[in-house]
């Protein structure tokens, strides 16, 4: 349904329910505004957008009135009434504004400043004392508030309440004393708090990390893609000279809309610190020495050539698509090996089969838009707010606007899940498959509505990477999708995982989900690479866990690692053992890491802003980005691999980014040159649901996942951001708390034979047999301390 109306005498035809302010935008008429934001509910509080509507005695707020048939609207362009009304409101807004633009971080990109120029008076008639507040007020370690500058548009408070669901800031006081504020002792620790800075139409909200660092006119803005998680946010990276000064969300309606999370916004300084400037080679003295690139490449090439094909590549899931692809190609073509894995985290063979069958090279199957329009979204082994925050935001939007039903198979309703009004199908870790089976069989209590909804058109199942720790969970998810007709998507945590999978950085898989065992697929890949099919590695490789074991067993001799962190590995001891026993290790690093002390050659590579490339988000959407720091001498992994390949005498096929992207387009079916062919796909995994036994008394089944803000290396030295982390705590059920005789806040130990974690306890409605710990937070590094993965049985006791 559309309506026809006129704005400034120009006819417009817009969908029914279109706000005047939006209709005017379609004509290119910008009506000034402060409180209006297209993704927030209208409030019409600032009164800046007043327009004249024929037949109405008073000017109306165009941000709150929808166009109706035949309505005649006149904006400030043609109406003196509207122009005067806006000028009057602007004059009022400025009387208490400190006009400290020269020292304000918003100065130069400030809607108030800009609109004061277009809609304001040239001079001020106000001579009285202005409102004054102590400034700035730190409402969290990351966000600072200048109340004097605030125009009470309530964008920040509405964002926090409506979009993020974290109403930790609210308007306090009233009348001319009205101000934004937090409650006593409860800071604005929302994962999405940085967005309020971006939507603040004045400089009232600024960040500690960017305060007074630079001015907008001094910055160069580049559109980039966030490298932190698989949500795939478009970012605006603003840099000055050689330093990134800040990051903002770039508007992308298909993915992150106008938002991003605080990790994506503030965690970028890791790129600056401790960067390697020259290659390092371990001398005969056992010490790493800086050498020239040619020396390093020659040394690495010699070492690898000697041991090839008894070589493996471990990638860690953080690489760009182009780099992961180059590794996939380098391993198969140059090293003649298929030992490659991008998963440096708890993983499983079932997962590899699932990915090969269902995910690799499928392109867009489930999108953000699908989530928004779904009748139900079932989450399996996924806590979206912690593990993929933009999925969380989209689910919350759908939950608020259209009552999307969210159901979750997991141990407890977390804060994030409560904000989605989610229904819990409670299970201990490891019981996911059994729960899905009984959901399908119809004998899970209270799940009938879930099953019914899953059978509706558009239903979605999202399964997280933690399903790898739960035998049968991936298989059961496929069954559930097949039985109900719901769409199934895989949500990894790291930005590089989906892209690495599509690029073929997994044993047995060539780019685009092609099976190495499939001759036709091999031939197709070989043709694009300009080689004979016989030039590619033949023997099927191993996943990471087996690779590490085979190094210790002497079956694999050399390793290439890229962006790897030992502490992320499911079995830290085995990893260290393997690294110490490997004959030759070439490590691609941005800075020294815990792998460096084992490496024989360290090749410094570019960070994500120093190279172009792409990430593929969980949807399968390829998110290209350009190089931001053009002057940086740093080189990408694929360039380095090219040098190595040349040195090792490999066929001269492309390693430059444009060549890589051309090949990828051909193989992955992207872009105009993409010619996606269908090849044989792997069969679905059919792992039976594990028997879930109740843990012995005094023990519990461990549930654990990464909190969004934790000890991750890429959150680096960013103290202000770290200050907004959620506290590390153990979650146990009320029953267990009673048994242990502990109250909220008491210390509780969680232990295995390997180690003990002691944390304050939080009592929540978690599955009776479960205990929850943060995976990698201060005081709780599960993989390192307990050496246990999700689903393990751990002892729980009062400290």
């Amino acid at each position, binding site marked *: 349904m559309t309506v026809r109306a006129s704005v400034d005498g120009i006819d417009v035809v817009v969908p029914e329910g279109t706000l005047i302010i939006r209709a005017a935008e379609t004509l290119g008429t910008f009506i000034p505004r402060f409180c209006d934001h297209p993704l927030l509910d209208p409030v019409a509080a600032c009164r800046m957008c007043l327009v004249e509507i024929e037949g109405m005695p008073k000017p109306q707020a165009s941000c709150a009135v929808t166009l109706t048939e035949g309505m005649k609207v006149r904006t400030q362009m043609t109406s003196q009434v509207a122009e005067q009304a806006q000028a009057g409101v602007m004059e009022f807004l400025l009387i208490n504004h400190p006009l400290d633009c020269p020292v304000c971080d918003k100065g130069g990109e400030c809607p108030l400043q800009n609109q004061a120029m277009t809609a304001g008076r040239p001079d001020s008639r106000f001579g009285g004392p202005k409102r004054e507040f102590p400034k700035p007020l730190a409402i969290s370690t990351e966000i600072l508030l200048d109340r004097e500058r605030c125009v009470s548009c309530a964008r920040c408070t509405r964002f926090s309440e409506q979009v993020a669901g974290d109403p930790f800031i609210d*308007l*306090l006081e009233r009348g001319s004393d009205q101000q934004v504020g937090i409650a006593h002792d409860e800071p604005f620790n929302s994962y999405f708090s940085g967005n309020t800075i971006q939507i603040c139409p004045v400089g009232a909200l600024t960040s500690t990390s960017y305060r007074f660092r630079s001015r907008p006119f001094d910055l160069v803005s580049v559109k980039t893609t966030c490298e932190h998680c698989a949500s795939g946010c478009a970012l605006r990276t603003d840099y000055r000279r050689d330093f990134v000064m800040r990051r903002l969300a770039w508007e992308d309606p298909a993915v992150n809309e106008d938002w991003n999370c605080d990790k994506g916004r503030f965690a970028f300084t890791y790129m600056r610190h401790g960067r390697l400037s020259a290659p390092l080679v371990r001398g005969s003295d056992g010490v790493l020495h800086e050498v020239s690139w040619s020396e390093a490449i020659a040394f690495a090439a010699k070492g690898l050539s000697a041991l090839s094909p008894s070589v493996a590549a471990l990638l860690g899931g953080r690489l760009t698509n182009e780099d992961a692809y180059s590794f996939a190609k380098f391993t198969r073509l140059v090293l003649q090996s298929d030992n490659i894995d991008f998963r440096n985290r708890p993983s499983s063979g079932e997962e590899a089969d699932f990915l090969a069958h269902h995910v690799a090279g499928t392109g867009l199957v489930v999108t953000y838009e699908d989530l928004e329009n779904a009748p139900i979204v079932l989450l399996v082994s996924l806590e979206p707010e912690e593990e993929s925050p933009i999925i969380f935001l989209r689910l919350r939007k759908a939950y608020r606007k259209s009552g999307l039903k969210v159901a979750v198979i997991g141990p407890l309703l977390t804060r994030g899940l409560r904000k989605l009004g989610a229904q819990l199908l409670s299970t201990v870790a490891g019981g996911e498959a059994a729960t899905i089976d009984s959901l399908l069989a119809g004998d899970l209590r209270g799940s009938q509505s879930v099953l019914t909804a899953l059978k509706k058109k558009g239903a979605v199942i999202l399964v997280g990477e933690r399903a790898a720790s739960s035998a049968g969970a991936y298989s059961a998810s496929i069954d559930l999708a097949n039985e109900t007709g719901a769409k199934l998507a895989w949500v990894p945590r790291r930005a590089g995982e989906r892209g690495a999978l599509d690029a073929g950085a997994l044993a047995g898989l060539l780019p685009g989900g092609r099976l190495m065992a499939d001759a036709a697929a091999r031939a197709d890949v070989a043709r694009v690479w300009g080689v004979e099919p016989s030039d590619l590695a033949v023997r099927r490789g191993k996943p990471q866990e087996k690779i590490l074991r085979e190094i210790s067993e002497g079956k694999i001799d050399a390793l290439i690692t890229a962006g790897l962190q030992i502490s992320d590995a499911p079995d830290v001891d085995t990893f260290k053992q393997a690294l110490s026993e490997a004959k030759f290790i070439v490590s691609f690093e941005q800075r020294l890491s815990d792998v460096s002390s084992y490496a024989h050659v360290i090749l410094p590579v570019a960070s994500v802003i120093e190279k172009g490339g792409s990430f593929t988000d969980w949807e399968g959407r390829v998110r290209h980005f350009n190089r931001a720091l053009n002057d940086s001498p740093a080189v990408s992994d694929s360039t380095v691999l090219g040098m190595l390949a040349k040195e090792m005498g490999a066929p001269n096929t492309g390693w430059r980014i444009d060549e890589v992207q051309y090949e990828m387009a051909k193989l992955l079916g992207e872009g105009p040159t993409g010619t996606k062919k269908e090849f044989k796909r792997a069969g679905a995994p059919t792992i039976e649901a594990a028997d879930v036994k109740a843990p012995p008394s005094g023990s519990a089944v461990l549930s654990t996942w990464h909190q969004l803000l934790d000890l991750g290396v890429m959150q680096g030295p960013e103290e202000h951001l770290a200050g907004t982390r959620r506290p590390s705590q153990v979650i146990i059920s009320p029953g267990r708390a009673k048994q242990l005789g502990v109250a909220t806040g008491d210390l509780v130990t969680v232990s295995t034979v390997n180690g003990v974690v002691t944390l304050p306890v939080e009592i929540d409605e978690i599955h009776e047999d479960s205990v929850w710990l943060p995976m990698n937070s201060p005081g709780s590094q599960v993989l390192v301390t307990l050496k246990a993965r999700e689903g393990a049985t751990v002892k729980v006791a009062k400290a």
Partner: protein
Amino acid sequence: MTPPANSVSLPNDIDKELTTIADRYTHRRSAILPMLHLVQSYQGWVSPEGIEACARVLGISPAEVSGVSTFYTMYRRRPCGKHLIGVCTTSLCGMLGGDAVLQDLREYLSVDENGDSPDGMFTVEHIECQAACSQAPVVTIDWEFFQYMTPWRMHEVVADLRDGKEVKPDRGSTVRGFREVEKVLAGMELTEPTQPAVDDAMLAGLMVAKGKAKS
């Protein structure tokens, strides 16, 4: 903000009492105003502790409760004396004598900049219109109503309160103290009125109509 020295703690079972108020409403958040009145009935102000208790019981954030509590003028930011004396100084009351009453009372009780008398017995403040302009100037003591106030009558009332004498307002119930009246507003105390609460102004027209008007 640390609570002032003269702040008292909430009782241990405050959550239970707050819950009984919340349970009165199908939509529990509606109970927030009476709940804050209840907090004041214990503490004489709305403390951070009280805000957290309300937030806990209603399942909303403390910031939201703070937003509400700071919006309404009857919720106090600091502990109140035993009696809260409010003198109306909006147009009519102010001009008919409210200004003089307020100025005199502040001097008479030697109140500090916060309006507290040195003995902690009284807190004096100016209040906005009580919508009882026929009885101007209006003074409220613990929100009980006093009309046609003059400085010298104010002195008597204050002296009586200090001496612990029973003070009857011009309509309604005996003045008992700020915290006690907050219980009424919280809906936690329901007592049977025994006397009519009618004054001359309310009957003015009726008396004229009945020919009984005083001239």
